[in-house]
């Protein structure tokens, strides 16, 4: 095993930054009062949560009472879909959800559940070969039963940024609620929920140098929705369970820091990303970039397919060189099908099995990119040399 460690999987998770950790530490053993308690000792706990709420709200141009803390981005996604659809159906407004084929499983599996168990109607929009939803497809799918549209802000696998502003404007005009899963996007883009006509938005702290186990759902006032977690009266009676104070404090701090450094960080990462993309395409023959070009993708995402090699193989070879990356190959998952996202982009199974994702972050240095460019071409060449699929591919090329 290599001593070197190059972490290029920031989309999977990020480290808690030292400033965020410092902000969190007092809330474990010193300021531990239950925010729901009456005595004055708990006042500091309540104040800490409200400060974090203000930090998150202000970063998004939202109101304080539009932010609800959850246990994760996944919970926020579950709540958004179930809470809105149940409410709308109960109010006799409709029972149809329109989402996309490339959502995270937190949306897709929730949608399938609503379809199968609760008889809601769900439509899954296709995407173009970059992974972008077409507004025409959305317009064509809408019926008078449609009450909610859920389109992710940016895709976690290929980094493609969706036309959220256009979708938001369309939905607002047609009186349909619009939810967006911004778990990845919120860590890299400046988001103004008012300007983009977003009604509900999911976020997660651990994608932005905050702790795991904390997320948030933005719900625009005065949208009505059902509760998801039932119990105590936390979060103004909308989300039960004793607050994860340290986690929430960490989320608030992470969001404020992120926002303050966002333009510089995004520009720096985009530059490194472009160096990585150009370098790989130049050094590895028959490499394909998956997703959109340039500003159409998140500044930290680079996703490739290398025909003839299988992704898990590449991950393990990279691991032996100390590099952490990710793949959409089935071999890294519980099923035999490769990534639903890559298939929705129109990739063949072979190309999807040969995918490799690098995602950069705040602590990625130019050296890290140079190192990947140094070791990856040899890894791909070696594995291709033992692949019958590569042999067939070359034969067909020369025909």
């Amino acid at each position, binding site marked *: 095993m290599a001593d070197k460690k190059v972490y290029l999987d920031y989309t999977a998770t990020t480290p808690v930054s030292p400033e965020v950790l410092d902000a969190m530490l007092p809330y474990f053993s010193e300021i531990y009062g239950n925010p729901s308690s009456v005595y004055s000792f708990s006042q500091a706990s309540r104040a800490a949560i409200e400060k974090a709420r203000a930090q998150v709200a202000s970063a998004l141009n939202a109101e304080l009472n539009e932010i609800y803390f959850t246990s994760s981005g996944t919970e926020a996604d579950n709540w958004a879909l179930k809470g809105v659809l149940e409410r709308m159906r109960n109010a006799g407004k409709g029972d149809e959800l329109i989402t996309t084929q490339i959502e995270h499983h937190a949306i897709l599996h929730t949608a399938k559940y609503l379809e199968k168990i609760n008889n809601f109607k769900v439509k899954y929009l296709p995407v173009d070969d970059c992974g972008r939803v077409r507004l025409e497809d959305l317009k064509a799918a809408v019926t008078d039963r449609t009450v909610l549209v859920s389109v992710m802000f940016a895709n976690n696998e290929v980094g493609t940024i969706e036309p959220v502003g256009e979708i938001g404007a369309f939905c607002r005009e047609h009186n349909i609620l619009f939810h967006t899963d911004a778990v990845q996007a919120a860590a890299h883009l400046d988001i103004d929920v008012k300007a983009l006509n977003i009604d509900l938005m999911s976020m997660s702290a651990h994608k932005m140098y905050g702790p795991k186990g904390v997320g948030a759902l933005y719900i625009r006032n005065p949208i009505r929705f059902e509760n998801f977690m039932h119990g105590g009266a936390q979060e103004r009676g909308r989300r039960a369970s004793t607050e994860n104070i340290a986690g929430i404090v960490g989320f608030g701090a992470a969001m404020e820091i992120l926002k303050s450094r966002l333009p510089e960080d995004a520009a720096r990462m985009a530059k490194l990303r472009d160096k990585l993309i150009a370098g790989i395409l130049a050094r590895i023959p028959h490499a394909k970039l998956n997703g959109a070009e340039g500003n159409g993708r998140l500044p930290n995402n680079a996703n490739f397919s290398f025909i003839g090699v299988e992704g898990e193989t590449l991950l393990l070879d990279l691991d032996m060189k100390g590099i952490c990356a990710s793949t959409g190959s089935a071999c890294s998952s519980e099923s035999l099908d490769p990534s639903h996202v890559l298939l929705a982009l129109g990739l063949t199974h072979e190309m999807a*099995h040969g995918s490799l994702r690098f995602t950069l972050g705040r602590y990625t240095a130019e050296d890290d990119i140079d190192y990947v460019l140094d070791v990856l071409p040899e890894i791909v060449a070696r594995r291709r040399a033992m692949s019958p699929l590569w042999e067939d591919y070359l034969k067909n090329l020369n025909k």
Partner: protein
Amino acid sequence: MALNYSDKVMDHFANPRNVGEIENPDGVGEAGNPKCGDIMKIYLKVNDETKIIEDVKFKTFGCASAIASSSMATELIKGRTIQEAWDLTNSAVAEALDGLPPIKMHCSVLAEEAIHEALNDYRAKHGMDIIPVEHHEE
């Protein structure tokens, strides 16, 4: 290590034995399909008189356990008779690798199938009956 691969799997993945092709092979077999993410191709050189497998090579597209299974399977049949090679089971391959994660067991099945294909190819070319085999659909 990722996915709890045994040291043996990682060793055969990192340094696979018998990789390559044999020119003018006596038997060639292929198993798997690219859709599922695994293809294994086995080449055999067989001594006509002794029926001993004198050389064996493989090429594999697939995950670490597919590559390790190919590598181990070729080691296990090299120097054996074609009958002994036929009797090699996928569980023997997995066992020799100190086990495979349950979800990866199909990789060892692929090795068994590719060897059977190669042996039948040899048999067909040498006037012997082909042994019927059942192929697992992935």
